[in-house]
C-alpha cells in the first residue's frame, strides 16, 4: 500500500488533470486508511457495489418549499415501492436517498455534490423551486450527474442549463401559459392584471403571459410583483386597475393563504374574474372559511386535486398508491391537503428514469451517457399507470415534456375541471438544443 501512496503523491504534481484516473485507487485506498483509523468515517467510505441503483432525491424538507417537499417525498417513496415490487430496474432494486436542501440554492448545490461524491448515486431528481434548480444545475453538469427536476420552470426548456438537466415529469410554465391564454381571454376577459412573486418562478409567468394574452387580442394591464418574503398583501391590492377583467394570480410559500384571504376581504363579492395558478392554494384546505370568496374562480391544475366524475383508472390507482383520498387530502388525516396538482411529476419522473435506464441497459455510472441519450430519445409518454396525469410529448432537444393542462372552477369547497387543453395548445417553437453539448 505504501508503494501506491507514493505513486499517487507524485502523479498529481506532474499532471493535475490526471486525477480522474487516480480517483478509483485513491478513494479505495484512502477509504481503507481512514476506515481503519477512524470508524466514524466508515459510512462515507462504502465501496461501490453493483447492488442497488441509487437515486438521490433533493428534497425541500425545510424552508419555504417544505409543504411541497413533504408530499414529493411521499410520492417518490410510493413510486419506488412499486418499481421495486416489480423487480426494480434492470433487475436491480432502487434505493432512494433523500437529502434536504432547505429550499436554499446554495445548499442545493452542495446536496448535488454530496449525491455525486458521497452517496455516488446514479441520478438526482425531485427539485421544485426554480432558484434551487438554477443553483444546483451547474454543479450537476460539472459532476456529470443526471438531474431530473419537477419544477415547471422554463430554465430547462429555454436551454439555459446543461445537458444533464431534464424535466420529463411536468410541463413548463411557458407551455402552460400559452395553452391556457386562449381560454382565459375567451371566457373571462381581455384585460388581465397579474400578481406574481418577484423572483425566478414568478418571472416565468411575467415573461410568458403577456405575449400569450396579446396573441389572443387581450392585454396585460398591470403587473404586480410581490417580494417572496412578503407576509401581507393588502397594500398591493389597490394597484389593481378598476377596469381589470381578469385577475391572474400566482403565489408560493407559507403566505399563500394570507394572500388569498386578503384578496377575498378586499373584494368581497364584487370582484373581477379571477384566474389563479393552484400554487396560490396548493396544500391549503379549500374548506377554510376565509376562502369562501374563491367560489366561482378558476385555477390551473396540473392534475385535478378532487377526483372528477370521469376519473381515469390511473388516477384512482395513483391516489391509492400515495395515500390520497378523493378530495386530495391524506387518507390518514383529511386536514392534510396534498400538493396534488404538482406532485404527480415526481411519480412520472421516476417511471421515466426507469424507462430510460431499461432502454439504455443501464448497469452503473459508466452508462450515464447511454442513460442521457436514452432519455433524449424518448418522444412521447402514453397515459397509463406510469403517467397518470395524461399523455405527453417529450422533446429530446430541450429536455422538456409537454402535456395537457386542466382549468378548474371552484364549486363550494371543491374544484371541477371545466376545460382540458390539448397538447398542441401548449406547443411553441423550441430553439434550445442540449444534444449539441458534449457529454
Amino acid at each position, binding site marked *: 500500500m505504501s508503494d501506491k501512496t507514493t505513486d499517487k503523491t507524485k502523479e498529481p504534481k506532474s499532471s*493535475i488533470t490526471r486525477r480522474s484516473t487516480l480517483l478509483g485507487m485513491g478513494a479505495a485506498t484512502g477509504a481503507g486508511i481512514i476506515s481503519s483509523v477512524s470508524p466514524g468515517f466508515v459510512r462515507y467510505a462504502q465501496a461501490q457495489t453493483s447492488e442497488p441503483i441509487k437515486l438521490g432525491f433533493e428534497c425541500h424538507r425545510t424552508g419555504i418549499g417544505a409543504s411541497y417537499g413533504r408530499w414529493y417525498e411521499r410520492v417518490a417513496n410510493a413510486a419506488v415501492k412499486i418499481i421495486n415490487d416489480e423487480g426494480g430496474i434492470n433487475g436491480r432494486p432502487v434505493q432512494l436517498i433523500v*437529502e434536504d436542501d432547505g429550499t436554499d440554492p446554495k445548499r442545493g448545490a452542495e446536496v448535488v455534490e454530496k449525491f455525486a461524491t458521497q452517496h455516488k448515486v446514479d441520478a438526482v431528481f425531485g427539485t421544485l423551486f*426554480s432558484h434551487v434548480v438554477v443553483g444546483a*444545475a*451547474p*454543479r450537476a453538469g*460539472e459532476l456529470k450527474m443526471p438531474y431530473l427536476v419537477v419544477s415547471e420552470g422554463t430554465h430547462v426548456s429555454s436551454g439555459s442549463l446543461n445537458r444533464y438537466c431534464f424535466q420529463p415529469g411536468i410541463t413548463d410554465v411557458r407551455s402552460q401559459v400559452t395553452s391556457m391564454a386562449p381560454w382565459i381571454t375567451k371566457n373571462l376577459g381581455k384585460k388581465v392584471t397579474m400578481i406574481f412573486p*418577484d423572483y425566478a418562478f414568478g418571472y416565468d409567468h411575467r415573461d410568458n403571459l403577456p405575449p400569450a394574452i396579446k396573441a389572443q387580442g387581450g392585454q396585460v394591464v398591470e403587473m404586480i410583483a410581490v417580494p417572496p418574503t412578503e407576509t401581507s398583501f393588502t397594500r398591493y391590492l389597490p394597484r389593481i386597475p378598476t377596469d381589470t377583467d381578469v385577475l391572474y394570480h400566482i403565489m408560493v410559500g407559507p403566505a399563500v393563504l394570507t394572500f388569498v384571504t386578503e384578496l377575498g376581504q378586499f373584494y368581497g363579492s364584487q370582484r373581477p374574474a379571477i384566474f389563479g395558478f393552484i400554487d396560490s392554494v396548493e396544500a391549503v384546505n379549500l374548506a377554510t372559511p376565509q376562502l369562501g370568496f374563491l367560489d366561482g374562480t378558476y385555477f390551473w391544475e396540473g392534475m385535478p386535486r378532487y377526483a372528477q366524475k370521469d376519473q381515469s383508472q390511473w388516477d384512482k390507482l395513483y391516489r391509492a398508491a400515495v395515500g390520497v383520498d378523493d378530495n386530495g387530502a391524506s387518507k390518514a388525516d383529511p386536514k392534510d391537503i396534498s400538493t396534488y396538482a404538482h406532485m404527480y411529476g415526481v411519480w412520472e419522473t421516476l417511471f421515466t428514469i426507469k424507462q430510460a435506464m431499461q432502454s439504455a441497459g443501464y448497469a452503473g455510472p459508466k452508462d450515464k451517457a447511454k442513460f442521457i441519450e436514452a432519455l433524449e430519445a424518448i418522444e412521447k409518454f402514453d397515459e397509463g399507470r406510469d403517467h397518470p396525469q395524461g399523455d405527453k410529448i417529450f422533446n429530446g432537444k430541450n429536455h422538456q415534456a409537454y402535456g395537457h393542462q386542466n382549468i378548474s372552477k371552484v364549486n363550494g369547497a371543491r374544484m371541477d375541471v371545466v376545460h382540458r387543453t390539448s397538447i398542441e395548445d401548449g406547443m411553441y417553437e423550441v430553439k434550445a438544443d442540449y444534444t449539441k453539448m458534449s457529454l
Partner: protein
Amino acid sequence: MTASRTMRVIALHVAVLAALFLVQFVLPDYHYLAMTRVMVLAIYAMGYNMLFGYTGLLSLGHAMFFAAGLYGAGMTAYYTDLGVPLAFLIGICCGALLSLIIGLVALRTTGVAFMIVTMMFGQVAYLTITYFTDYTRGEEGLTMPASARNFDFLGLHVDLTNAVLRYNLALALLAITLFVILILVRGPMGRVLIAIRENEPRTLMLGFDTFRTKLGALVVSGTISAMAGAAYGLLFAYIGASFASIQYSIEALLFTLLGGAGTVLGPLLGSILMFYMIDIASEYTAAYLLVTGVALVLLVLFFPKGILGTIRERWLPWLP
C-alpha cells in the same frame, strides 16, 4: 527566545498547510470537495477573525463583504469578457471599497451599537441584491457561464471544473491568507489591534490613532472576506443572495468562536469542525441548524475562548 518562538510558529503553520496538501491524496471524493469548500469558508472566517478576534469588534454583517467579493467577481465574470483573473481582482476591490465605506460610518459606534449597525448594513446589502433582481437574479442567483469556467492565464489553460485544481487553488489562497494574517498579527499592527481589544482608551492615550487602526483592521478583514467570496463564486460557479443573509454573517462568528477567536488557526479549525458537525447532523435531521444554535450557546457559556484559545491559555502560550 523570540527567534525560536518564530521558528515554532512558522513550523506549525507550514505543517498545517502541508497536512492539508497531503490529505488530498487520501480524501474520498465527497470530502475532497467538502474540504475545498471549507478552505474557502475558512478564509472568510479568518478575515472575520481579524476584526472580531484580534480587534474585539463583533460584526454581525460580515456576509456583506463576502457577498461584495462574490458579486463583484461573479457579476464581472458573468456580464463582461474581462476574464476570470481580473474578475477575481475586481471582487476583492469591491470588498475593500465597501469595507472602507462601512468602516468610516460604523466605527463611530462601539459595542452593542456596532453589532446592530453592522447587522443593519448587512441587511441593506442583502436587500440591495434582491432589489436589483434584474441583474443579480436575487434569491435565484446566477450561474457562471462556461467562459468563466475555462480561461487562459499567463499562458496556462485553467479549467475550474477540475476538482484537483480547485482544491489546490483554494489551498493556495488559504496559505496566502494564513501568512498575511500571521505577519500582520505578529507585527506592530497586530500588537496595536490586540491593545485596542484589551483596552481602547489606554491605547488611544499611548498615542495610537485607534480609529484609523480599527478602520485598517476592518478593511483588511473585509478584503480577506471578499477574497473568499470572490473565490467561492468563481470556483463553485454560483452566486446568490443567500450568501449575503444574516445567517451567513453568523456562520463566520460561529466558526471563529468555535476554533478560538484571536488565534490564527482557530477559524480554520472551527470551519472544518462546524462544517462536518452540520453535515453529519443533516443526515439525521432536517433541523440541522439546531447544531449551530446549541454550539453558540455552549461556546459562549463554557468555552468563550474556543478550542485553540483554551489550548493557548492552558498549554501553548506561544500560539499566535
